[in-house]
C-alpha cells in the first residue's frame, strides 16, 4: 500500500529531474543532494556528541512535545475542556486504536508508554519537513529510525521471552505443526523475517519516506526558485512559466507530506505493536 505512492514519487522525481536538466543546460541549477541530510556541525565538532541542525531540531521537537502535553494534561478534569479533549483524543489514538485493540487491556497498558512515545516522537519528527524554518524531517537521517527500530526489536523480543520463557525462540524459529523436513526451509526464512528484516524494514520504511519527501520538496522549491529568479534564464524568459508548475507540485507534495508524516507514525507504531502481539501470542 505504501510502495505504490513511493514508486509514483520516484517516477515523478525522474520526470521533474529530466525536465530540470533539459531546461538548465545553460548551467546554474543545482538540485538537492544527499548532503541535505548532513548539515554542518554546530556544537561539539569532532566528538561523538556532534550536534548539527537536525539534532537541534530534535531537541526543539522534544521540548514542543513535552510542553504541549504538559500544558494539555496539567489541569485534568473529569468533564474535559476543549483542549483537554484534543489531548485525550490524540492519546486515545495510541491507547485505544493501537494498544488496546491489538494487545488487549492488560498488555496494552504495559506497552502503552513505549507505543505512545514512539507514535508522538515519530509524528513530531516527521512534521518539520514541512514546517517553514525547520524544513527537514528530524526522522530523515538513519540514526533516529534505526534507534527506534532497535527499541521496537528489543521490545518485542523482550515481550516474547517474558511471556514464553524458553519456548519463544524455539517456537518462533520452528513453528509447531510443521513436518520436520520443512524446517530446512522455514527456519531460515523465519529467522530472516523475524529477527533481521523486521527491524530493518521498520527503519528503512520511515527513513526512505522522509528522505524521499524531503528531496522532492527541495527539488520542487529549488526548481521554482531557479525558474522564477535565476539569471541564467536570460533570453529564454518563457521557461519561467515552468516555475508555476514546479510550485504547484511543491504545494501538492507539501500536503502529501502531512499525510505521509501521520501515516508513517501510525504505521511504525502499529507494526511495533503487531510484532509485540505476535511475540505474545500463544502459537507462533
Amino acid at each position, binding site marked *: 500500500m505504501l510502495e505504490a505512492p513511493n514508486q509514483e514519487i520516484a517516477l515523478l522525481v525522474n520526470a521533474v529531474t529530466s525536465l530540470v536538466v533539459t531546461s538548465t543546460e545553460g548551467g546554474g541549477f543545482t538540485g538537492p*543532494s544527499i548532503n541535505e541530510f548532513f548539515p554542518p556541525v554546530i556544537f561539539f565538532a569532532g566528538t*561523538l556528541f556532534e550536534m548539527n541542525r537536525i*539534532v537541534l531540531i530534535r531537541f526543539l*521537537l522534544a521540548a514542543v512535545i513535552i510542553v504541549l502535553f504538559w500544558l494539555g494534561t496539567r489541569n485534568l478534569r473529569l468533564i474535559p475542556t476543549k483542549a483537554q479533549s484534543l489531548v485525550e483524543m490524540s492519546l486515545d489514538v495510541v491507547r485505544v486504536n493501537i494498544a488496546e485493540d491489538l494487545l488487549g487491556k492488560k498488555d496494552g497498558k504495559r506497552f502503552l508508554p513505549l507505543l505512545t512515545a514512539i507514535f508522538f*516522537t515519530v509524528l513530531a519528527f516527521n512534521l518539520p519537513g514541512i514546517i517553514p524554518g525547520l524544513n527537514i524531517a528530524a526522522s530523515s537521517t538513519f540514526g533516529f529510525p534505526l534507534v527506534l527500530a532497535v527499541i521496537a526489536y528489543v521490545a518485542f523480543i523482550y515481550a516474547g521471552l517474558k511471556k514464553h520463557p524458553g519456548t519463544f525462540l524455539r517456537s518462533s524459529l520452528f513453528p509447531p505443526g510443521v513436518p520436520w523436513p520443512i524446517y530446512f526451509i522455514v527456519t531460515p526464512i523465519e529467522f530472516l523475517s523475524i529477527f533481521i528484516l523486521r527491524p530493518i524494514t521498520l527503519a528503512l520504511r520511515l527513513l*526512505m519516506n522522509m528522505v524521499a519527501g524531503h*528531496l522532492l520538496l527541495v*527539488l520542487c522549491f529549488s526548481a521554482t526558485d531557479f525558474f522564477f529568479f535565476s539569471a541564467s534564464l536570460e533570453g529564454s524568459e518563457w521557461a519561467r512559466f515552468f516555475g508555476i508548475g514546479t510550485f504547484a507540485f511543491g504545494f501538492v507534495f507539501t500536503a502529501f507530506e502531512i499525510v505521509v508524516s501521520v501515516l508513517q507514525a501510525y504505521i511504525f507504531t502499529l507494526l511495533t505493536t503487531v510484532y509485540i502481539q505476535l511475540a505474545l501470542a500463544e502459537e507462533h
Partner: protein
Amino acid sequence: MLHAIFAASTAAESVNPLVPAPYDMIWSTVVFAIILVFFWKKILPNVSALLEARSAAIEGNIEKADVAQREAEAALAQYTAQLAEARAEAGKIREVARVDGQKIVTDAKDVATTEALRITQTAHAQIEAERQSALVSLRGEVGSLALDLATGVIGQALTDDAKSKALVDRFLADLESSEKAAK
C-alpha cells in the same frame, strides 16, 4: 526508489545515508529517552488516573440513578398499596353502612308496624268500649222510652220495676230475634 531519488541529486557525494553516524544515534536515543520517560512517568499515569476517576464517577452516577430508581419504585409500590388499602377500607365502610342502613330501615319498619298494630288495637278497644257504653245507654233510653210509650198505650203505669224490666228485656230480645230473622 532510492536510486531514482539519489540519481536526482546532481552532486555525486560519497556519503552513504544508510550508515548511521554515531552522533545521530546518540542524540536520537537521548531525545527519545527523554520523551519516553516523560510519557511513561508523567503523562500516562495522569491520564490513566483521570480515566479511572472518570469511569468511577460514571459508575457512581449510574449507581446513584439506580438507587433513585429503586426508591421511586418502592415509593410507587407503597403508594399503590396504600391506595388499594384505602379503597378496600372505603368499600368495607360502605358495606357496613349499607348493612346498617338496611337494619335501621328494617327496625323502623318493625317499630312502625308494631305501633300501627298497637294504635289499631287501641282504636278497636276504644270503639268496642264506646259501642258497649252506647249500647248500655241506648238500652236504658230505649227501655224508658218504650215504657213511656207502653204506659201511654195501655194507660197503666208500668211502675213496677221488676215487671217493666222484664217486659223491656223481652221486647228487646224479640227485636233482636226479629232482626236476626230478617237478616
